[in-house]
């Protein structure tokens, strides 16, 4: 697919969103990235990434779910679009394929 080359951080973000499913709003995504990938990122920066992904058509979002902690303000829940899903799975397949082609002795060296 054309124009769907995404960076590593974008990939991690998309993965986090998939993991979080209905709970995928910015604070959770931020926590997830920290927990899983040890990436500290401020909300502003994350927001920029999310908007960019949205612009590329890999994400879509809607407002919903106001809570008391949020002072009654709704949150923006992100969801992968079909394009987003296919980009992710394409990446996954490419990696899997390439990992599969690494000779066994070399694989041992990597895992040391």
């Amino acid at each position, binding site marked *: 697919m054309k124009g769907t080359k995404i960076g590593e951080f974008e990939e991690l973000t998309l993965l986090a969103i998939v993991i979080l499913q209905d709970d995928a709003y910015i604070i959770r995504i931020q926590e997830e990235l920290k927990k899983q990938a040890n990436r500290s990122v*401020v909300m*502003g920066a994350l927001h920029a990434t999310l908007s960019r992904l949205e612009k590329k058509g890999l994400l879509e979002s809607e407002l919903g779910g106001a*809570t008391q902690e949020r002072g009654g303000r709704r949150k923006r829940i992100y969801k992968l679009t079909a394009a987003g899903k296919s980009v992710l799975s394409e990446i996954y397949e490419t990696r899997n394929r390439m990992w599969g082609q690494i000779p066994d002795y070399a694989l041992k060296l990597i895992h040391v």
Partner: protein
Amino acid sequence: MSNQLHTPPTISIRLIRALCRTELVEEIEGNLYEYYWIISEDVNRFGKIRFWIQVLTYLRPSTLKLFKLKNSGSMFIFNPKIAVRSLFKHRVSTSINLLGFVIGLLSTIFIYFYINTELNIDSFHVDKENIYRVIRTSEINGAPYDVGVTSGPYAEALINDYPSSINTTTRAFPQNGLVKIADKKFQENKMIFADRNFFEFFSYPLAEGNPGDVLSLPNSVVISREIATKYFGFKDPIGEIIEVDNEYKFTITGIMDDLPAKSHLDFNMVFSIELFEGFDWFHGWWNNGLVTYINVPNTQQAHYLDTQFPEFMEKYFGDDFEASGTKIGLHVEPLEDIYFNNKTRFDPVVHGDLSSLIILGAVGVIILFIACFNYINLSIAMAFKRAKEVSVRKVLGVEKTRLITQFLGESMMLLLASMLIAIGLSIALKPIFNSVFELDILFNWADQLVIAFMIGLVLVVLVTSGLYPALLMSSFKPVSILKSGKIPLGKNSFIRKGLVVAQFSLSIFLIIATLLIGFQLDYMKSKPLGYNKESLLIIHINNQEIQSNDELFKNDLLRHENITSVTSASGEPGGFHDGTVLQISGVNVNPKVRSSFADTDYLKTLGIPIAAGRDFDRSFANNDSMAMMINEKALAEIGLTAEEVIGRKVTIPGFDIDRRIVGVVKDYHFTALNNEIEPQAIIMGYTHHRRFIVRMNDVDIPNTLRHIEESFNKHSPNFPITYQFHDEGLDQLYADEQKQARVFSSFSGISIFLACMGIFGLAAYAAEQRQKELGIRKILGASVQQVILIISKEFITLVVIAAVIAMPLTWIFMENWLHDFAYRIGLAENWMVFIFGSLVAGIIAFLTIALKTYKTAASNPTDCIRYE
């Protein structure tokens, strides 16, 4: 759980609301609320900071509102795009205003830092409130004066007599001498000899060495970084040996750091004063030469000391006072007053001149005002061009307050741009400015006051120059303007004219003042001084060798064909003249006089005429070894005729031998012309001599100088010669006045330039406004010259009014300024200067206008009247 606890700071929410895109605000706020809630649960004490990091990093292109300069009309309170457009549209007036503001702000910045530097002198001493200097008071013929120097014994006597009023004392003894380190040898003029507690008493910073013990050994010396580099380069100087005057050896024990501010004591080497303790004269009460400081517990004690001093002086000087029939007093001067008290005589410390400082400040403010007036005038002129724009906006419903904000905003943009340029330029031009005006300005950006000052400056200028045009423009009546297309000219033309008059008054004032200050300086330089000041060379007797060989040296000098006469004396005219008292036999009054000790050739060398009696005579030098002469002022003080006075015996305190008056000399100026001629006694004597005065012929001076240097080296092989041409030395006496003259001439140039730029802009505007009228006039037969005259007439009238206002004010100011000079030019005989100054301003203004309007005047009249 309480909501209060988990509500993020209101300001953060406001910030987000103000700056972020509306559609994102809800989400972002929600996120911040939640984040804040999370970190409040957390015990981490950096929570607040982490929260603010989140807030601030939210402000980025992807979230911020679109601040692209939009022309979406009246909805914005301040519309930068319209502001920028209007500034670019009126390029000429924008550049005039920009230049004016930059120059005005630049002057103000310099003056701020200058005043700041001067006022911060000695501000770094930790105990500065409690440090006082002990100064002596004396009087000469009823006029009291302060003397900066005291003698060695004061410090110890003071602390012994008033132990509860004085904590500590210290002494500083300024000297110069020949310093030799290894193979390097220089004459140093900024040496001081100081008590061992000097570096504890004051807070001069040390780069190496401990303030407490750096001067504790009798032969220790502390040097400045500059001296260290001069003699040692990159080598560590600690422990090295310094030889002073080829005789005394000192070990370097410390290095001074650069001073954080300027100081009244200017020195680069501090020696231990112990050296002098060995000399008898150092313990004499009358051998003044050093500066005594005391540290008191509080101000009351200082006042108390002042009341005790008469008793103190009586205790130590009682007998001398009785014998001489005169008295000297003592008082203390706070450390912070020392620098500006430049009336103190015989003062080795550095002084500043408060009146120059005030004049400089006032001139800076004048320049700033001229720039502000330009802005007001040009903005008013532009206002009429923008009348339609304003009217349309008003019709569309824009409120008056918004229009005011818009116009103030435009002024603010221009002003901020000028401020940035001015700050940049001030940094770049500082070295030039310092050298042109011989100042020593330090820029202290770290000072918090600087920022407050800059902001205050911008606000003051904004209000002065931006408010009136903004109010004027916003008050236009849209209906009449849109209907008739005409703008109601009216009372504001009075304000405009008033401002032009004010600008030119100030410029004319500065021009006339510049000229008159220059005249006064010329007058002082060319006034006959009562002796022949040309072709005199002054050689300093600065060491023992030359002092003991003075006769031989003198004879060697006279051997040269171009040296006509040589004398040695205690001081040259304009130089040092001590004070003393004469007790004349059979006369009741004991006149106080300035004393000059000189040899037989003093009058001959200087060319001072005798009024009565005779000069010292070399042929019966034996008798004349106790001769003396007085000047006419001293004669008048005594109240006898010359015949009655000649031959009388005179006792001078401190001298064993009585003197005899042999002659009366005509008064000559032996001090700077700021002072009246004082009574003087020229006393025969070979001790106390500090100078050789050499009269030369004006031919082949280099050759003569070479001969002088060779002779000096022959008789004083170990010390280099220091000499100076007398007329140059005299010029230095007027350095302050010359500095003021330079300040005035530069700033009057700038002010007339700014005023003309303003009038240039106004003339351009007037020519444009009256284009049609001028076209019709030309068709009816007016010439180009006549057309130019029509436009100039209005402005020239204003300049004439300005001159009428400026002349009397300048007169009053100059009367005041000249008041300080005992010998001065008269203003009445220089009335031409006033006319001339005004004419210069008028002519420059006319040329400016003519230059600008020529194009309009010379254009084809059909071009401007053809189209309706």
